């Protein structure tokens, strides 16, 4: 900043452009504050109150300090801490869907952008792989619920070939796998498109140089594509993480809100919905949201740190 210029009115040469800078970034901050920061703070504020409906009667709001958080972190009678259970459920189902999602998308993106392969009908394939994303998650969940139900087509095939009916939604791992698979199916197309954009942004001459030097496809992939694609991969992972932590519609519909079997498919947002849905329990719902926010923050930080290039240590 040139603070000296402002004290010298005689000189008009140097103008401060800073104010224009601030003006141009202002819309972001205004929107961030009104649409993100204030709701965040008011959620926390709400979590400090006892405030719900008992039937049609309003209870509260009464200030109760951190009681709602204490309640949330009190294990139930058999020693299980449900909030931890819900967090684990969410993370497990997210990882089961997100890992194949990124790997698969990366593979497709490399294939589609490969100068050597020159795949025909790219637009067609891109449309097809993106399509599941256009269908509502709830429709997807209902469809899969029917397909895997005790009288659905999968079980008809099983019984027709002499097997016993398999109750997919009464077993922990089959229910989780179906939920993860739906999420994978819905989102891998979107990830593919993002990664393709990233790969196409890499200078083609690098690939050419590598192939002239005799690099194999594997070497090109690991030494050129992956390192240069890192910023996009981080973006993809973080957005997928945030989306994954908010997993709700698919498990909610597939298990009719119960998180069966044995609460192994109940996610954090399903718990949030339980609190807010019937009793309008803003206190507990606020507490769950705040916990979710903290978890998201911590995980995003970890992802960011672990993928940061190591040389950056000696910063300018």
């Amino acid at each position, binding site marked *: 900043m040139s603070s000296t210029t402002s004290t010298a009115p005689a000189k008009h040469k140097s103008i401060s452009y800073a104010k224009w800078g601030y003006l141009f970034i202002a819309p972001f901050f205004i929107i961030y504050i009104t649409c993100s920061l204030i709701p965040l703070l008011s959620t926390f504020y709400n979590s400090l109150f006892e405030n719900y409906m*008992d039937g*049609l*009667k309003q209870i509260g709001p009464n200030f109760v300090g951190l009681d709602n958080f204490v309640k949330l972190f009190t294990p139930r009678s058999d020693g299980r801490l449900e909030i931890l259970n819900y967090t684990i459920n969410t993370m497990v189902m997210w990882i089961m869907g997100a890992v194949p999602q990124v790997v698969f998308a990366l593979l497709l993106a490399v294939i589609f952008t490969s100068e050597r392969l020159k795949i025909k009908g790219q637009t067609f394939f891109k449309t097809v792989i993106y399509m599941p994303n256009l269908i509502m998650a709830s429709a997807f969940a209902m469809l899969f*619920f029917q397909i895997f139900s005790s009288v659905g087509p999968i079980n008809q095939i099983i019984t027709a070939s002499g097997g016993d009916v398999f109750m997919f939604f009464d077993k922990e791992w089959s229910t989780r796998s179906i939920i993860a698979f739906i999420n994978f199916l819905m989102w891998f197309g979107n990830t593919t498109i993002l990664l393709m954009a990233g790969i196409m942004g890499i200078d083609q001459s690098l690939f050419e140089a590598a192939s002239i030097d005799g690099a194999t496809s594997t070497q090109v992939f690991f030494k050129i594509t992956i390192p240069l694609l890192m910023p996009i991969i981080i973006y993809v992972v973080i957005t997928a993480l945030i989306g994954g932590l908010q997993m709700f519609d698919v498990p909610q519909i597939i298990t009719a809100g119960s998180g069966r079997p044995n609460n192994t498919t109940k996610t954090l947002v399903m718990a949030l919905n339980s609190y807010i849905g*019937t*009793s309008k329990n803003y206190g507990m719902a606020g507490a769950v949201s705040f916990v979710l926010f903290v978890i998201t923050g911590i995980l995003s930080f970890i992802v960011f740190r672990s993928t940061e290039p190591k040389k950056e240590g000696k910063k300018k």
Partner: protein
Amino acid sequence: MKKRIMAVLLAAASVVAVAGCSNSGSGSSNSTTTTAATAAADNGGAAAADTTAGGGDAAPAAAGSDEGNVFNIYAWNEEFKGFFEKYMPGYDAGAATLNGVPVKWTINPSDDGVYQDKLDAALQAQASASADDKVDMFLAEADYILKYTDSDYTMDISQIGLSQVDTEYTYTVQAASDSNGKIKGVSFQCCPSALIYRRSIAKEVIGSDDPADVQAALDSWDKYDAVAAKAKDLGYYMHASFAETYRVFSNNATSAWVTNGELTIPDVVDKWTEQAKSYYDKGYILDTLPGVWDDGKTAQMFADGKSMCFFGPAWYFNFCMGNAQDPDKGCYGDWAICEGPQAHFWGGTWILAATGTDNPSLVADVMRAFTENEEVCENLVKNEGQFSNNKTVNAKFANDPDFGNAFLGNQNDTAVFSEMTDNIVWANATIYDQLCNEKYQEFIKDYINGTVDKNTALANFYGYINEKYPAVVTP
């Protein structure tokens, strides 16, 4: 460019295909959310109000003649809507108007408490809603009617010019009364619940399909257990769903789900749990453990089904046994009813007037039509197989030797139900009953199929109740 068009076309085609599948799926699982706004043409509105005032039933309408322009009804399924559209005097099916006032239905499924949640939101917004958006009339079920009758959101029926009628069954009036004894609504059906059995299977298992013989063979739980063992030996299931007998036990409860804010599992519900567990272990019921409403269970109603008994009132076999009535795969006429091991009731639909309604005289007309109007009640019994809430009408059919329900092999179901009504007890209702009943069945399933032990299953249930009802203290 051609490729792009091709891609878009393909995309559209598969979206339509998938959407189509999921639609039919949701339809069969009974959970579609339809907001059936019946083409409420605005233009007829003003004129409509006049006709109502003039052409009304000459009722002692306490409410003035200023009727609103839209008659808003909240319901959780299409059952009453169907009866209303067919039999309500003054209803014009073409224009979807009642006495000239457009009727607007808002239908939300009751699964997971959705209907109550939506209705509560609408009632709480009632004061500030514009006249045409105010809830005028809504339906409530036995499991949660208390929540509404015991609140200021419903009107005493005397306020809209009705009084208790002797022809109504006592329990339907008790259920519609608030804790001070004020009557807040009427029921258009009386719901004693019977044992519904497949005649052909009963012939093989019990040796007769005559209701009297079957009743004699199944009039206690001990006998029921014995017959269940026999049915299994012959390759049949005693009943399909593990929760089939739930209501038989739960609606004979001697204690409430919640007393003074504390939840306790009623003894009878615990007894049911033992029965369900032992029936599953012994193979008396389907080992896939479908719930009462699941496709796995309703598939058993087809002719090739292997289940002998179902439990339910008149609305159940008329409205929920579509598979049995299927012209190709069903077994119409192969059914009959008897009281079974224990008298009980199940469900029932009460009509309540929302406080703040701008169509009070229309609400009164509907209430009167479906309880006092003998022609309407007769149609319900005769054409719809309902058991009406009008003793005179029911007695007429019960005593008619020629009357019979073709679905039940021409058995006179009205006569059977008439005898059962005296044994119905309305007691121990709480505002939390719907989710307690529904979710208990769901969470205890993990125990019945051996996924977890009983305490864990109960802890999961308590956890759910804690989340849904912060005011309720669980063990």
